[in-house]
Each structure stands twice: as structure tokens, then as C-alpha cells.
């Protein structure tokens, strides 16, 4: 296919075509985008089990009314840490890992733009999470004020407070450096001739995601810095007595926090936009509108933050504005969903595991999106806010949303990474078992939420007992079925049916023109892209 376009005339310096350094130091000192991608992905998988184990502590305590297992303080710490681990330790690193692996290959680039910085971005993560997780073992316990860290409650945290804040700064450094690297790679490392509107969707979505990260992570860092000075240096940012306002923290936090949730979903949109066309054997419908929709979502995400704050007592005009702007996000998101459906329409579909996860994503993300739309309706949100209805909403967009997209992409690209096909039968079973349990887990949360169960509570009234028990069954079922995922991955790394370079019949794009497994160095000679090279 497009590899024929490689320009033989490009001069190249004397690259030493050596492989990776041997031993452990290979991983510590590597600058190779594939190695770093692998590190990110394994890190994220490990963190998934840590964050998941915390979720299981939550679900075990909520198994029935009454307090059976943990102290309420520890329960709150679990809720907080579960969210921090899942968001900053699982979904974000997984997406960065995928970006590392795939973006250079999709662009026909030899590596990321700033390989050393790339290494640092990864090697911050384990250190930062060491600080973060160590707070759970401190005398004062871990952070227990929710992942949103609202003051004044978060200021009541014991000795772990400063550690949590600095761990956030630490993680932020990693995210911003990683994002800068991705932006520089996309703008600067495209194969000669590749226009922006020729870039694969995953690259586009990551470009916009990286922009969101660079724009919002520093704001979050600013917010927690103010928490720090309020606690240790007697400033009054969030205290009315000194003329500040605790609600101001929420504004600043959500100015970051809302774009953050799109950071957790835009790369997923990109991934799905690769998988559905592949297994429909049909080009992605409406590429241009996909790009514009992504950009619109990103733009809107900056002006909707206060939909998390409808009960904080904002002026009417602000409430109306944030309601309308939030509702608007459904339009570009709808465009994406419709485009996926139109891609499937009159395709020639097969249902290998990545496709199953992608379809599962589209359906369950839409369910989560629609409940998001309900939350956007301010008067109704007065009732929904801080209940399990919200918990149901965001788990639908995050678990069968973001997490499913990550699983889909692992199944989709693992043949390219390892050179082996995964076990298709086990993959399908993994999908179906997960899908059943994930709904048993999260669907009942809509019910208890509407019926009045607040979130972040370790104990509840008897009327919610049945549904909570069902959700807990779902949680353990879903959690333990993920051990299958690990098994399938390890099995695939170890061996299996050999994969071709093309891997999937309908796959398009530069990454499929190289061998499987992808050589340690790819595209050292840039392919020359012409208007009819298939790049997406």
C-alpha cells in the first residue's frame, strides 16, 4: 500500500540500528516511543487493579446497610483515592501510552519529538503515585474529602495534606510535559506531505486533548497551590472571614475538572473512529465533521464548568448560561455518534473483540451521555446532584466508555505490538462477561440515585438495600472478569498465531504498512505522503 510512497532519495544519517539495551536499565533509560508506550500501558494496568481493589472495598462496605468493614473515614479515603487512581493513574496514562505507541507510527515519524522528555514524563508517574498512595499508610489516613478536594473540608486533612498536594503537582508536571511532547510530535514530526486534515482521527483527538491538558492542568495546580497556602501560610483565598470564598475553589477546580473529563474521552473517540471503520470495511463517515465536532467539544468544555455547581447558589443568569452551554455539547457529541452509526451502515461488518468493545462503547457511552444531558437540566439537577444518579452517569461514560475504549484498542493493536494474535475466543468471552456485569454494576445506581441515595456515604437507608447488593455483585463480577484480560494479554505476549503486517482486513493507515511486531525503530526514513496515500 502506501509504503511504496517512501521516498528513496531521502538522506539519512548513520543511525545505529541497534535494538534496545539489555536488562532493567533498558526500561529506565529508554527513549524509544514503543518502550515508553509499553511502560505506560503496564503501569496503567497495574493501577487499574489498585484503583479497582479500592472500588471493591467501597462496594463491599455498601453490600448491605450498616457499617461492617471499614471506618467511615477510611471509606471516604477509598472513594477519594479510587477516583484519583482511576483518573490520573489509569485512564490518562493508558491514553498517553497508546499515543506513544501509535502516534509516531500513524504519522510516519521515527519517534516522538522530544524522546528524553518523554522518558521523564513516564518516570515521574511511579514516583508521584508512590507519594500519593503512601498517604493511605500515614497516621492521619489518606485524603478523604473526595477527589475534588473542596475546601474547607480538604484543609482538615491531617499530615497527608501536603503530600497529596505535592503529588498532584508532580503528576501535573508529567501530564504537561507529556502533552507538550505530543503536540510537538504532531505539528513537527508528520511525514513530509501529510496535511493536518489527512491525519488519523486518533492523532486529531490527541492533539486536541493535549491542548486541553496544557491549558487546564496548570489551573488545577494553581488551585491546589492556593489550598496549600491557605493551610500553611495563612492566606484567605477560600475563607470568607478574610474576604475569600470557598466556592471560588470550586470554580477554579471545575474550570480544570470539566475539560479533564473530556481529556478522558476524546482519545477514546479517536480510537473508536479507527476500529469501527476497520471492522465495517468502510471509510469513516464524515471525517471533516468528526474533526470539527472534536474541536467544538473542546471549545465548549471551557465554558460549561459550573454545571457541577448548580446547588452552590449561583445567580440565575449564570445558572441559565451554564445549563444552555452544557446542553450544547450534546450536538457535536451526537454528530460523532451518528457518524459512527453511519460508518457501520451498509458496511460489511465482522465482530472481532475490538469491534465488540467499540460497539459496547458506542451504546453505553450514549447511555451515559444521555444521563449527562439530564444532569445538565438545572432544575432537575437540583434533585440529581450528589446522588448515585451522578455516579451512574459518570461511570457509564468512564467504565464502559473510556475503559472499554482502552480495552478495545489493546485488542486492536496488540497484534501489531507483539506480532501475535490474541485468543479471539477468550476475548469475546471477556467482552460479554464484562458487559453483563458492568451493567449489573452501574445500571441500578440510576435507580437508587433517583430514589434519593446520596453519594459518598458508607451506610444507607434500608430502602436502597436490594439495588446496592446487586450493584456489588456486578462490581465483583466485573472486577474479577478483568483477570481474564490480564491472562489474555500475557498469553498473547508469550505467543500465539502470528499476525500479518496488515492484521485486520479492513485496516487502513501507515501503522499497518509495517511488520508485526513493529520493529524497534520504524519510519527512520520518512514516507512521502501524497494526496492519495492512505493515512487514515
Amino acid at each position, binding site marked *: 500500500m502506501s509504503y511504496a510512497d517512501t521516498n528513496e532519495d531521502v*538522506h539519512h*544519517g548513520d543511525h*545505529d540500528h541497534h535494538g534496545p539495551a539489555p536488562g532493567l536499565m533498558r526500561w529506565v*533509560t*529508554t*527513549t524509544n516511543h514503543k518502550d515508553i508506550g509499553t511502560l505506560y500501558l503496564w503501569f496503567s494496568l497495574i493501577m487499574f487493579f489498585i484503583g479497582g481493589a479500592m472500588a471493591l472495598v467501597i462496594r463491599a462496605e455498601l453490600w448491605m446497610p450498616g457499617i461492617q468493614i471499614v471506618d467511615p473515614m477510611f471509606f471516604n479515603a477509598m472513594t477519594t483515592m479510587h477516583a484519583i487512581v482511576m483518573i490520573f493513574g489509569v485512564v490518562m496514562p493508558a491514553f498517553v501510552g497508546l499515543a506513544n505507541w501509535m502516534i509516531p507510527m500513524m504519522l510516519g*515519524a*521515527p*519517534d516522538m*519529538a*522530544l*524522546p*528524553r*522528555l518523554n*522518558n*521523564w514524563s513516564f*518516570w*515521574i508517574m511511579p*514516583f*508521584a503515585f*508512590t*507519594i500519593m498512595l503512601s498517604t493511605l499508610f500515614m497516621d492521619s489516613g489518606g485524603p478523604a474529602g473526595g477527589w475534588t478536594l473542596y475546601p474547607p473540608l480538604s484543609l482538615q486533612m491531617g*499530615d497527608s495534606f501536603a*503530600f497529596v*498536594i*505535592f*503529588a498532584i503537582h*508532580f503528576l501535573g508536571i508529567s501530564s504537561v510535559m507529556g502533552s*507538550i511532547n505530543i*503536540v*510537538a510530535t504532531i505539528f*513537527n514530526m508528520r511525514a513530509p506531505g501529510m496535511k493536518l486534515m489527512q491525519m488519523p482521527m486518533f492523532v486529531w483527538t490527541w492533539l486536541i486533548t493535549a491542548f486541553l491538558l*496544557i*491549558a487546564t*492542568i*496548570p489551573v488545577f*495546580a*494553581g488551585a491546589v*497551590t*492556593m489550598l*496549600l497556602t491557605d493551610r500553611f501560610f*495563612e*492566606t*484567605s*483565598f477560600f*475563607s*470568607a*472571614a*478574610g*474576604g*475569600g*470564598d470557598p*466556592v*471560588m475553589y470550586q*470554580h*477554579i477546580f471545575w*474550570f480544570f475538572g470539566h475539560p479533564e473529563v473530556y481529556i478522558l474521552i476524546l482519545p477514546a473517540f479517536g480510537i473508536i473512529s479507527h476500529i469501527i471503520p476497520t471492522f465495517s470495511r468502510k471509510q469513516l463517515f464524515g471525517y471533516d465533521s468528526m474533526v470539527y465536532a472534536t474541536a467544538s467539544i473542546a471549545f465548549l468544555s471551557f465554558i460549561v464548568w459550573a454545571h457541577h455547581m448548580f446547588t452552590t*447558589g449561583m*445567580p*440565575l443568569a449564570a445558572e441559565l448560561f451554564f445549563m444552555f452551554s452544557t446542553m450544547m455539547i450534546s450536538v457535536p457529541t451526537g454528530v460523532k455518534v451518528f457518524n459512527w452509526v453511519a460508518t457501520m451502515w451498509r458496511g460489511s461488518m465482522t465482530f472481532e473483540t475490538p469491534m465488540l468493545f467499540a460497539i459496547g462503547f458506542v451504546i453505553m457511552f450514549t447511555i451515559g451521555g444521555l444521563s449527562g444531558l439530564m444532569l445538565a437540566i438545572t432544575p432537575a439537577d437540583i434533585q440529581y446532584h450528589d446522588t448515585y444518579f451522578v455516579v451512574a452517569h459518570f461511570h457509564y461514560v468512564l467504565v464502559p466508555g473510556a475503559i472499554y475504549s482502552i480495552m478495545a484498542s489493546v485488542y486492536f493493536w496488540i497484534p501489531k505490538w507483539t506480532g501475535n494474535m490474541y485468543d479471539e475466543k477468550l476475548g469475546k468471552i471477556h467482552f460479554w462477561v464484562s458487559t453483563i456485569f458492568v451493567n449489573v454494576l452501574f445500571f441500578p445506581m440510576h435507580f437508587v440515585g433517583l430514589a434519593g441515595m446520596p453519594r459518598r456515604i458508607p451506610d444507607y437507608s434500608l430502602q436502597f438495600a436490594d439495588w446496592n447488593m446487586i450493584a456489588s455483585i456486578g462490581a465483583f463480577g466485573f472486577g474479577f472478569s478483568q483477570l481474564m484480560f490480564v491472562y489474555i494479554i500475557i498469553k498473547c505476549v508469550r505467543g500465539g498465531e502470528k499476525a500479518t503486517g496488515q492484521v485486520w482486513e479492513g485496516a487502513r493507515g501507515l501503522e499497518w504498512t509495517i511488520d508485526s511486531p513493529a520493529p524497534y525503530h520504524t519510519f527512520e526514513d520518512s514516507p512521502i505522503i501524497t494526496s492519495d496515500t492512505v493515512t487514515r
Partner: protein
Amino acid sequence: MSTATDGYYIPHEAKWPIVGSIGLFTTFWGLASWFNGSGLGQFTFFVGMAIMVFMLFGWFSTVVGESQNGTYNGQVDTSFRMCMSWFIFSEVMFFGAFFGALFYVRNYSGPWLGGEGAGGADVTNAVLWSSYDYVWPTDGPADIGGGFQSMGWFGLPLVNTLLLLFSGLTCTIAHHAIKDGDREKMVRWLGATVALGLIFTGVQAYEYYHAYHALDLKLSSGIYGSTFFMLTGFHGFHVCMGAIMLAVVMFRGMKGHFTAENHFAFEAAAWYWHFVDVVWLGLFVFVYIF
């Protein structure tokens, strides 16, 4: 590029990043323990800082060495430029959070505490803070920190503004000098820029001293003190960073680095300096004047 080889340079086996991670880990861990009152924490913090300095020195030496050897081609140079500009953008957003806090307090929550606004402001004032009238500058309805005088804009702040503006000018002259290939002139004007930066910092330090001792204006002086010191302090920290960058560039210039075509490090430091400059103008207008 004169001596660049072709092909995008991909370094192998970077050892500085892991040193940097260990350094940051030590720094943050030490700082957090220090905040919790541990003497060992203070020590750990300084060890961490030492590791960081060591790392930065080592990392930059490597890069400078590679650059001098002509390892980088134009494309690598572009990557560096993008990296620096997006980094500055992230810093802009960091300042944005603090400016946002200032605007929010002054235009929204402050007046609210003083009783202006619909849907609860009047009762907030009448029931909780009945003796409070909102006027900026304020240390809040509970007079946190006791009385203080605010910092006027005329005098030292104005001097500082002129200093920084002038330093922008000297920096630009230095830039033109290197573009003309006149390295010595560049070093001279850079020296002036660094000196102006240092004088600025000195004046700022004196201003703080004055604030604490003569005006009773402290970090603990309610929201005015909080925003004042947070914004100017954070800015001052950036001035120091910028001055260090410029100084490094100056020494490199003295060692004969940089040519008329190839002086990215100079430009990066200069961009940073201009950014710090622009932020100061924002500060001068919104923190000092209005």
C-alpha cells in the same frame, strides 16, 4: 544549519530523567514533611534541590554539547521551539488561575459579602457580617490580620515597571546583536538585562520588607494580602528563573556558543523574559493600579 547531520536526532539511553524523577520525589517529599514540621524534611528538601540542580546541569550540558556538535537539524530545532512556546502557554494558564481568583473576589464574592447581589447577598451581609462594607482593598469581614495599608502603584512599583520594560528593550538589543553575529555586543546587553532583572528582584524584596514592616501588609492580611503576595511572589519567582536562564545564556555566549543562525537557547530565554514582562504589566494594572 551549518553542521547538522541529516535525519532527526533520537538520543539513546537517557539517564538524566530518572535522576530528575528521584530529585523531584526527594524535593516534594522533603517539602511536605517540612511543612508538617519535620526538621528531617527540611534537610531532605535541600538534598532534593541539590539533585535537581545536578540533573538540570547534567541534562543541559548534554543537550548543549549535542547542539554544539551539530547533532541537531532544523526539525529538532523546531521541536525545541514548540516545546518552549507551549511551556510558556502552560505558565500563562498557571498565572490565569491566580488572576482568576483576583477577579472573582473583586467582582463577585467580595461585593457579595458586602451585601450586593441577588439571592442571598443581602442576608449574607445582614446576618453574618453586618458591620462589613466591601471596599477593595480588603482583608475580609473578620479583619483577618488586622489593619494594613495597601501597596500604591506610584513609587517602587512604577520604578519596577520601568525596569522590566527597559530590560525587555536591552534583551531585544542583545537579540539583534546576535542576529548580526556580534556575540560580544550580545553578551554586554544580556548582562544589562540580567542586571536589570536582579535589580527588579532587589526592589521587590525591599517592597516586601516595606510591606511587612511599614504597611503591616502580610500574606495573612486577608484576601488582599493573599492575592497581592501570591501574584507578585509567583511572578518574582519567575523573574528569578528568567534571570537564571538569561545568565546561563550569557555565559554560554561568553564561551563562544551561538551564531547568527543558531541561537535557540537565547531565543527561548528571551521569550520567557518577555512573557514575565507581560505578566508584570498585567500585575501592575490589576494588582497595583486598580
